[in-house]
């Protein structure tokens, strides 16, 4: 240092100046190091924090697509309602967290202030419903049912209602035009859950927090198509949430329209007739139990035989699907899911299973043919069948002598099938089954599509049950402990059954096979399975997957038809199918079990085939089954605890056919046929994807006079179930 001598400064000061300089620069280097650490080493982390800090996504949900019937009549659409919403962001910025505004709002809407506040609180694990589980940046709907007056009050005084909007908004509606509710077929929507958001995160249709998701029925199966894509605009916002710029706009796509094969008019008829049939049968007394029929539930399916398309599907008890719109109330939900209401959410056409009873005999007859019994040979239809000292009676213990299998269908003769079932069981080795046992009856049942889902485009279809050897074994494995505990030799009937089951419930017994041959015992089928099977007999043997959806029409007018798909062929040749068809035709002709319900039907013009069924269910009244088809349609109806097949379901099925083909009870055309031929065309689609809805008139049920059977010469036909 050249200046030391000149300054004459002491070394102490000189050293301290150096110390100061070192200190100063170490401070600067500390800052530089920290800066490097924050910006270079951990930069990404903070960059991410910054992004989430200042971008807000505003979601404009896509208008959900409509569900139309085959002619374009809306089954589910949207209506514009005045929705009053509150912006949480705005309210929370107020000194009192929006309390004053919400209280004023409650006054205008005639609600309790607490109710309004509950609606806009955010859901978390500790918050009971009602609460909002969408994004806090979304306007939260306070009511979907504001009157014009209320909306005007809010909109005219924006200074009194900051953060509150009253906007016309599209809300789901199930209009039930012409009385076609189709509640279980359509299903319902409810808000998306966190779990679903997580699951759908990386798929091509991620959920938004504001989404309503189809929970059941068509709304669920075609959720993706109907939902469309919401418009998401990302705004850059400042610390007060003020918008500073738009970063990204994801254009929305309105939901596609789903054209279904449902015909709203036929649907209305089916719903009405099913309900009416159940009402009627509840007036009748069951001879076996001596009580009035319960008729607790029922279903009817109308299907195109050549495509598997569902024209109508009704299930009782039903409900008004509009209960779900805008969030279901606690009371409604409890009612819809309670035992007292007998679970109206269930679609009994695909989720109700019962023993098939005699409508199963087409399967047994086919099995017999496959096993080598000629269709037209004579089989003894005795009044009862004896097996090991036990007697199995025919219906009303009536015999018909030696008859063909076709006649066995006509008279619904049990003993013929008892014998065939028993014989086959013996041929397969009885209790010691052969290794290569044919199991024709069980195999044929499976190949008729029973014991498995039909693949209908509705969620949660049940598979029914074919109680073959394998099933017997696994069922026994699952239940033997309980049976063995409950079973008691020489005890009550139930205890004795349990005792026997405990010992040898794993064996397929002769008794099981005899029962199975007439669709009794442990066999369970669904109406949709039977409709599919009977449609296959009608169309020459193809088992179609039943479909409700017919075409998806996107908003740009693009039409994507849902083609019919088959899942199998009947396991019999064309000759046998034609034999079965002849036998089923005899059922509605004089002497057949359903003849008394189809008096006056123009069998020569519209040949009708049918099979009645009266299934016994342990501890319950009998289940009524009626499976029918024409060349174009099949109708299968069932009423649980409703009595006999033709007795309970007959008139309803006849009325549905009458309405579809436009016939009076004596077979004369009324000129008002609803659907004499399946709807081949899609409704005309406008270039913008919209579809003009045709007019629809509610179903006018026939008057008692119109229902009177035609007067015929000779004695009235024998009533026979």
């Amino acid at each position, binding site marked *: *240092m*050249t*200046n030391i001598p*000149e*300054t*004459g*400064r*002491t070394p*102490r*000061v*000189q050293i*301290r*100046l150096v*110390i*100061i*300089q070192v*200190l*100063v*620069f170490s*401070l*600067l280097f*500390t*800052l*530089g190091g*920290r*800066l*490097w650490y*924050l*910006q*270079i080493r*951990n*930069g990404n*982390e*903070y*960059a991410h*924090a*910054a*992004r989430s*800090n*200042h971008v807000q996504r505003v979601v404009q949900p896509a208008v959900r697509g409509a569900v139309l019937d085959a002619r374009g009549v809306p089954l589910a659409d949207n209506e514009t309602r005045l929705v009053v919403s509150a912006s949480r962001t705005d309210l929370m910025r107020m000194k009192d967290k929006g309390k004053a505004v919400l209280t004023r709002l409650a006054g205008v809407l005639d609600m309790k202030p607490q109710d309004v506040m509950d609606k806009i609180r955010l859901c978390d694990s500790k918050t009971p419903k009602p609460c909002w589980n969408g994004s806090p940046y979304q306007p939260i709907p306070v009511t979907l049912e504001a009157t014009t007056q209320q909306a005007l009050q809010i909109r005219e005084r924006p200074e009194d209602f900051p953060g509150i909007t009253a906007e016309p908004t599209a809300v789901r509606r199930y209009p039930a035009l012409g009385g076609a509710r189709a509640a279980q077929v359509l299903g319902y929507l409810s808000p998306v859950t966190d779990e679903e958001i997580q699951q759908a995160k990386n798929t091509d249709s991620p959920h938004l927090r504001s989404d309503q998701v189809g929970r059941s029925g068509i709304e669920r199966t075609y959720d993706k198509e109907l939902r469309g894509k919401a418009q998401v605009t990302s705004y*850059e*916002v*400042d*610390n*007060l949430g003020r918008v*500073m710029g738009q970063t990204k706009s994801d254009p929305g796509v309105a939901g596609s329209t789903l054209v279904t094969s449902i015909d709203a008019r036929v649907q209305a008829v089916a719903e009405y007739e099913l309900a009416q049939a159940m009402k009627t049968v509840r007036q009748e007394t069951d001879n076996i139990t001596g009580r009035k029929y319960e008729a607790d539930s029922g279903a009817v399916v109308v299907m195109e035989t050549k495509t598997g398309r569902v024209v109508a599907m009704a299930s009782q008890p039903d409900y008004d699907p509009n209960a779900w719109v805008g969030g279901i109330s606690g009371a409604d939900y409890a009612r819809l899911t309670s035992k007292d209401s007998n679970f109206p959410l269930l679609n009994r056409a695909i989720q109700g299973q019962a023993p098939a009873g005699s409508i199963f005999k087409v399967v047994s007859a086919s099995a017999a043919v496959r096993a080598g019994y000629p269709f037209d040979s004579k089989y003894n239809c005795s009044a009862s069948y004896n097996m090991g000292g036990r007697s199995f009676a025919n219906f009303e213990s009536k015999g018909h002598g030696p008859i063909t299998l076709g006649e066995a269908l006509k008279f619904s003769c049990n003993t013929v099938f008892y014998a065939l079932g028993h014989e086959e069981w013996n041929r397969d080795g009885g209790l010691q089954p052969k290794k290569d046992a044919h199991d024709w009856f069980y195999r044929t049942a499976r190949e008729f599509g029973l014991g498995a889902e039909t693949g209908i485009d509705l969620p949660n279809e049940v598979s029914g049950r074919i109680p073959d050897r394998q099933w017997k074994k696994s069922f026994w494995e699952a239940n033997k402990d309980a049976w063995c505990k409950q079973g008691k030799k020489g005890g009550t009937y139930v205890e004795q059954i349990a005792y026997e089951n405990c010992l040898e419930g794993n064996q397929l017994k002769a008794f099981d096979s005899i029962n199975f041959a007439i669709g009794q015992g442990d066999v369970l089928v669904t109406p949709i399975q039977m409709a599919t099977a009977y449609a296959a007999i009608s169309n020459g043997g193809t088992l179609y997957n039943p479909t409700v959806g017919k075409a998806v029409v996107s908003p740009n007018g693009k039409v994507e038809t849902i083609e019919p798909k088959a899942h199998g062929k009947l396991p019999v040749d064309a000759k046998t199918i034609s034999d079965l068809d002849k036998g089923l035709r005899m059922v509605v002709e004089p002497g057949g079990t359903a003849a008394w319900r189809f008096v006056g039907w123009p069998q020569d013009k519209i040949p009708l085939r049918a099979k009645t069924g009266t299934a016994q269910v342990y501890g319950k009244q009998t289940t009524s089954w009626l499976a029918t088809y024409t060349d174009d349609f099949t109708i299968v109806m069932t009423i649980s605890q409703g009595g006999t097949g033709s007795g309970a379901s007959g008139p309803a099925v006849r009325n549905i056919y009458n309405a579809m083909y436009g016939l009076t009870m004596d077979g004369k055309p009324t000129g008002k046929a609803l659907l004499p031929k399946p709807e081949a065309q899609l409704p005309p689609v406008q270039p913008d994807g919209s579809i003009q809805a045709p007019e629809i008139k509610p179903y006018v049920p026939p008057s008692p006079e119109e229902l009177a059977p035609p007067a015929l010469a000779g004695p009235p036909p024998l009533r026979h179930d």
Partner: protein
Amino acid sequence: MPTANKFSVSRYEPKKGPLARLTARDSVLRRLDYPMLLSGLALSLIGSLLVWSATRHRDYLNQGDPQYFLWRHLLNTGIGLVLMIGTVWLGHRTLRGAVPVLYGLSLLLVAAVLTPLGATINGAHAWIVIGGGFSLQPSEFVKITIILIMAALLAARVDAGDLEHPEHRTVVKALCLAAAPMGIVMLMPDLGSVMVMVVIVLGVLLASGASNRWVLGLIGAGTAGAILIWQLGVLDQYQINRFAAFANPALDPAGAGYNTNQARIAIGGGGLLGSGLFKGPQTTGQFVPEQQTDFVFTVAGEELGFVGGIVILGLLGVVLWRACVIARETTELYGTIVAAGIIAWFAFQSFENVGMNLGIMPVAGLPLPFVSYGGSSMFAVWVAIGLLQSIRVQRPLSA
């Protein structure tokens, strides 16, 4: 020896025009420390851009004129430059005589804050509103006068050649003179400024050559004082919260930790090159409070990135480095002490300000010299630069 008187100093001075005088080898202009001057100027100009960026959207501050703060900052810089030129023109030696008066004046000003003349801004009752949108923060000027009065006192007998180091009595006197305004500032309470003043006093004592006991004693006393303040609860809740949030910024990200957290997000988000001036989302989104003053460094961090931050730190480094050179080069202890006091002031205030922006120092309301918006701070800083330049200009020619 009488011969000595025979030498006569030539009174001859060649007549030179003002321009020639300014460009002469020994002229003020040629002796100025340009690296320091230009660095300070660059910092002020960068500061004007950062302040502008931070306030463009803050309508509640800029009275609807997005450039309001840009012009104000440039105006402050201009006034600061004028003050610097004035200081150089007067010279620190000339000012030495006026130091007691300046000290007295600053003491009066700072005391006036406690009278109804004072105003509270951001929790500190540290301002005198002059009117016309101007307000004064006397504690900024006190920083200078403390340096000057202590330097004058401590250097008096040393520069006179009486002593090698200031004696204890002088040190006590000097400390008392420093303590008076510091006590008043403490009452405001403007803890940040008090901290700076303590460090200034430390730097002054170090450079004065006062006994090690004083230096260590002051450090000890400072620590004890800090503990005492904490224990006695002199601090307001907001100050305690700031410290708590410093210790754990995640503690209350919406409350006391908000500033720290948002500042760190802004800086961290900048990366190497930053998002570009006016393009920082944290800045344009006004997520960082007090961004034109205490948190101005976050604008640099976010919009100019690591490179911009390093440039600012580098420029501050140049200023401090030059100040250190000036402190060493001057022949008189007075100049050395003044320079050291200014170094301590700039260094600590920069460290505290940038440090709190980076989350390594607790939040205290201190401006970043040159860069932060604020007239009083800008004026004081440029006066200090003027003092340093004056010391530099009046150093021996050989140095």
